[in-house]
């Protein structure tokens, strides 16, 4: 299935693609492993995911065309 990616801050410099096609992956833990394999630098960054604008606290299932935001620590203000 296809996942839309939104990358922010430092992570926007690591993950430059806007979507990924993942086969056999159905949740955020799977997506994280997939992204960390494809973009090894991601392993050195603390980040959170938001699925369809909801911040993910634990492993969350993904559906086709879900939008996943990959967010390093916030530094507004």
């Amino acid at each position: 299935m296809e996942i839309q990616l939104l990358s922010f801050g430092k992570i926007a410099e690591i993950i430059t693609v806007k979507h990924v096609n993942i086969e056999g992956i159905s949740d955020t833990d799977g997506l994280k492993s997939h992204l960390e394999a494809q973009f090894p630098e991601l392993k050195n960054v603390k980040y959170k995911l938001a699925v369809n604008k909801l911040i993910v606290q634990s492993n969350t299932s993904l559906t086709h065309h879900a939008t996943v935001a990959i967010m390093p620590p916030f530094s507004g203000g």
Partner: protein
Amino acid sequence: MSEKKIKNIFVEGAISPQFIAESIAKHSSKTEIGGHGIFLGQVRKDKIDENTVAAIEYTAFEDLALEKMHLIREDIFEKYPLTCMHIYQSLGTVKAGEICLFVFTSSAHRKPAIAACEEVVERLKAELPIWGKEIFEDGSHQWKENK
């Protein structure tokens, strides 16, 4: 939470002292107010090794940030007897010495205005998906981290 109630907080570039003055002036007709708490964030010209911060460039996950801010706003209005609350966060480039954050809370009495202002600043920094990129004078950059 209804969509139409979500207020924007983002402004492009620095927040001018003139804008702050106009915000304050607008409250002179709200004569039930006795105290205003204001916090202003200003971009520091930090020196890191041999390099100096010239500006911070802010980006945000705007939709999520505004939804989060809306929830914070509801919490704060429930917790403190405020007359009003205004929040402005810069996006884009803000040069060293310029204002990037303006939090403005007003109440009949000083204590809720001051306490609410502080709590909004802390929650905004911790919970809103906003990122600051420190641009050095030589054009290089690093990503800001909040303490």
